[in-house]
């Protein structure tokens, strides 16, 4: 009996466990292994074992890079929240048939390749494009400013690209939370003397925290690792860690160093996410 049930348990767990081992633990082990190797002349990783890849990471250049990546991701996440919250509230308050339509529209961009969408965005920010030309027409000719506005290849355009790409990942979990929100609670708060802001902070925010936390992580983590947006919207000027890693594996052909960078990024992001969850949970319990 005992044996029987434990075989059954094993049988049940096997597919999941296999999946996790084959596609998660093994690749990570591989990367850990590579990160301690040396860059070979032909480009492929070679012995001897070394920790140089790690010590190089803690040099000033790469610490700044980490710092900037975290900063840009953080700000873009905050911007995403600021935009997503009112939009989601608006969607939730729509009549039922319009609400489903709106959520459908939020998801539509997923059906187009991310690279293509980013090129489209880049085109909008290009000074030679019609959009920026119109703006600069007003800015220079009508308002009499000397220099044209340049938006592309700035930190701002990178953040904007990240916000644009990640917005649905914030809206969908927020929507799930807000849909369950009982709006009479806001009336109760206002009945008890809370103005709009305090009703939001003391009632709506804590009760939609699960969606907000899930959304923030879904936005923040890919933002750090992102390289398409950084490449296309930032050019060389606004380097982020994801793009550096991609370059190590491609043009620089330095797999061991790329592997070390990825692992460190993974540790940092996991730690950040854990702290965030913990804080968020504490906030909710309050």
């Amino acid at each position: 009996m005992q044996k029987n049930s434990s075989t059954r348990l094993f049988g049940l767990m096997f597919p999941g466990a296999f999946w996790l081992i084959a596609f998660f633990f093994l690749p990570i082990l591989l990367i850990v292994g590579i990160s301690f190797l040396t860059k070979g002349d032909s480009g492929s990783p070679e012995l001897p074992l070394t920790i140089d890849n790690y010590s190089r990471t803690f040099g000033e250049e790469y610490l700044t890079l980490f710092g900037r990546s975290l900063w840009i991701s953080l700000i873009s996440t905050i911007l995403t929240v600021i935009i997503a919250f009112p939009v989601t509230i608006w969607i939730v308050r729509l009549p039922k048939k319009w609400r489903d339509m709106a959520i459908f529209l939020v998801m539509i961009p997923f059906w187009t390749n991310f690279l293509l969408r980013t090129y489209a965005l880049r085109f909008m920010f290009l000074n030679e494009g019609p959009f920026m030309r119109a703006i600069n027409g007003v800015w220079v000719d009508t308002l009499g400013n000397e220099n044209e506005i340049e938006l592309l290849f700035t930190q701002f355009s990178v953040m904007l690209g990240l916000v644009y790409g990640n917005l649905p990942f914030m809206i969908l979990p927020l929507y799930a939370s807000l849909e369950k929100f009982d709006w009479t609670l806001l009336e109760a708060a206002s009945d008890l003397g809370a103005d709009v802001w305090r009703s939001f902070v003391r009632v709506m925010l804590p009760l939609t925290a699960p969606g907000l936390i899930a959304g923030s992580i879904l936005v923040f983590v890919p933002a750090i690792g992102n390289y398409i947006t950084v490449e296309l919207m930032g050019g060389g000027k606004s380097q982020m860690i994801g793009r550096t890693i991609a370059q190590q594996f491609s043009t620089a052909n330095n797999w061991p160093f790329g592997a070390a960078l990825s692992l460190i990024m993974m540790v940092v992001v996991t730690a950040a996410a854990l702290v965030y969850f913990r804080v968020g949970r504490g906030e909710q319990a309050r």
Partner: protein
Amino acid sequence: MAQFLTDSAVELCDVVKQFGDVAAVDHVSMAIRQKEFFSMLGPSGCGKTTCLRLIAGFEQPTKGDIRINGQLMGDTPAFQRNVNTVFQSYALFPHLTVAQNVGFGLEMKRVASDEIKRRVKEALELVRLPQMADRHPKQMSGGQQQRVALARALVNRPQVLLLDEPLGALDLKLRKEMQIELKNLQTQVGITFIYVTHDQEEALTMSDRICVMSKGKALQIGSPLEIYERPNCRFVADFIGETNFLDGKVLQINGEFGEIEVSGRKFVGRIGEGVRVGDKAMMSIRPEKMLLVDKPNPNALNTYETRVASIAYVGSDTRIIVKLGDTQVDVWEQNSQSTLDPSYFFKPGEAAWLTFKPENALVIKE
């Protein structure tokens, strides 16, 4: 138009609230007195909740003025009005403990934290839940949640407490208990209660005055006794308690009383507001105000022979349906005599004389 007293707790002056084509509140005027237990009673959809929401400030009137303690509310937002609401769904904050829920209003008014603690404790003792301060609303029964909602409102010492069917979700027994408790509490704290219900018995037992509403209109405002004994229209007479209507035509009026002809028979009753000679009108007589007798007093008014159609014994009284010509009439006889004697009861098919006093019959307009 109603005469407004400046010392009213709440005044509604010709208030209209339009939702699209629907007038949820339709030219309503009322003056609610200080420390009064005032009920709004009416069927579902008659605009009771909308009235409360207008007073609380969750909705703005399309037309008309609302005053609280003599002050014109205009578009004063809800959070600046000195009234508190007990919601039908309670609307307790699920992420806060009972004590935090009750203290919320005080916290918003930036009351010092030790005073909040003291007043929360007092409020929880008032609703007899002192040991529940650290629980979350989810961990409480419906009746307990209801009391927390009450404490959360009362702790702010509002001028007026608005209650929207606060006992609607409770079972009958708990409901009866809470009715008594609420009424006692209101006397104790001396706050004006505006109480919405669609349960007429609840309104009659608890209220100082009742406003009966239908289709957005306030039909009659008066004490429970006035509402029950002197309804001013068919709807009120019909909605509050049971009654018999006899449709006819007014023949003559003599002071407070008048004569009405109902398919060839003449009845005398109290003449209601606005009834004139020659009007089509109806007579309303409560079933318990009628009597069936074997032998009629030859001089008595309102006495006619009927035939017993059916009898139902319900313990405290016996409910008899008699036929007066073609009209069915309900008669409730209290079983104050011994009922072990079978000859006490009328039998179906028997003749019986129906009689009632003119002061117990009311002639009202269509």
